């Protein structure tokens, strides 16, 4: 069994699949996350693939503050993911609510709803910063 779990861990580190979810942000972080996937920055060289279904994904990339309407949906997506799962929060308002703090539709940062592993600050963070966050996450995976 030990061999098998080692193999699974190796596979996960070499190719983490991500799902991207905008929980109420302004699209700026989203286009930077997508820019990180395209040729100039290309996180695919770390084996990272963007997936459409939460059931296929290891890492949930969240952008934007949690709004009243998306909180339950975010939790539902998180619950649909297979264990072990990780969360990467991209952008300032994903962390604290940022500029939208105090608005009636916004509940605050993503950790109001789900546990977060890596925070990437910036409004929006540059693709390099997002890659750095991914690398940090891979380091964390190594330790599990």
């Amino acid at each position: 069994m030990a061999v098998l779990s080692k193999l699974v861990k190796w596979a996960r580190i070499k190719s983490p699949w991500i799902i991207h979810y905008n929980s109420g942000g302004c699209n700026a972080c989203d286009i930077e996350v997508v820019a990180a996937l395209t040729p100039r920055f290309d996180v695919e060289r770390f084996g990272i693939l963007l997936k459409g279904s939460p059931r296929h994904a290891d890492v949930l990339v969240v952008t934007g503050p949690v709004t009243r309407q998306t909180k339950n949906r975010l939790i539902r997506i998180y619950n649909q993911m297979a264990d072990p799962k990780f969360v990467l929060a991209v952008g300032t308002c994903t962390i604290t609510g940022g500029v939208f703090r105090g608005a009636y539709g916004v509940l605050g940062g993503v950790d109001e709803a789900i546990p977060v592993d890596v925070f990437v600050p910036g409004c929006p963070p540059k693709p390099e910063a997002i890659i750095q966050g991914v690398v940090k996450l891979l380091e964390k995976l190594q330790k599990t």
Partner: protein
Amino acid sequence: MSVEKRIFKIPVGPQHPALKEFEHFVFTVDGERVIDVGFRIGYTHRGIEKLAESKTYIQNLYLCERICGICSAAHQGCYAQTVEELADITAPPRGTYIRTLIWELERIHSHLLWLGVAAHEIGFDTLFMLVWRDREVVMDLLEMISGNRVNYAMSTIGGVRRDISDELKHKILKGLDILEERTKYYKEVCMKEQTILARAANVGILTREQALKLNAVGPTARASGVDVDLRRDDPYGAYDEVPFNVIVYDTCDVLARVLVRVDETFECINMCRWLLENLPEGDIRTKFARKIAENEVVGRVEAPRGELFYYIKSNGTDKPERLKVRTPTLANILPVCEMLKGGYIADIPIVLAGIDPCFACMDRALFIDENSEKKWVWSREQLRIYSIKWYKEHGNEVVRERWKQ
């Protein structure tokens, strides 16, 4: 099977992993044909209009910028010029020119981004990757000018915050040359490539009458033969001085929406050149008193997606009494519902992408057979893959039939 039995309701959304914000659509389909569309929006409703009433004019600059990340300069610039009119100050010419330059560079970035997304929706990922690679050129230019790739924070009340040096000017002109050359190539691809023609020509028709009746805005309206562009029709910034053409296509389909945006990119490049070459000397901003007397102003700009509308009312304090924003996508919601009616399920992704929605979402489609109550769930990605596969099987006959018309 009787006709009634074949009518399905498909809820699509609200969660989406791929590109944009989310929205919920309910499609009523008869076989492969969409017969009715309902929508539900507001998943990203944050309460900005209320929040803005408790912030000062300066703080609201940065709040408005974050209403939309892709057209952030349009939002911020529109807010700044509306407040300027409210306070009865005018930005100096150099400031206005730089602001206009940022607007146009942003339009290039937004249109190229859209072209990539549209290519992705029809399964043409090569073009998606190529366009996004070249888009990095304009992102670099914006970063050089403003210090950030997205959310530039360039406009302020009374002008702009950063100047453009001569050295920077040369770099921008060089970047524009590269962009022009690449955009020429993309135009050729869009006009000749069978993949695009087969999926975009005669798809998602919005006639001129419908566009006028439903008040479509921006490239969506211009692709339906409506000659409207607020840069010319309600001049603001430096647009009454810059020479440019308004691009209008009258084929009313998705292909026209592609070509309008590609051609507009050329216009933007030429306008940026003109603005740089004719950049007046002088200050970049004027002083602004923090309190504004009672007044009200209607402000409009032509954002990359269409008419962006601001209505601001002041009450003598340093905070606005009311700030009303109407984004272009809201205006294009009813037109897109018209476009989808009568089309195939497989065309939904590209038609929805066709208006360049700021909150489209196609993540999860839940199919409910109304008679047997059988359910199955589709993700947006699966819908996209289904649409590509469906076209591989049925593509030839459908395209032939379309071109006959």
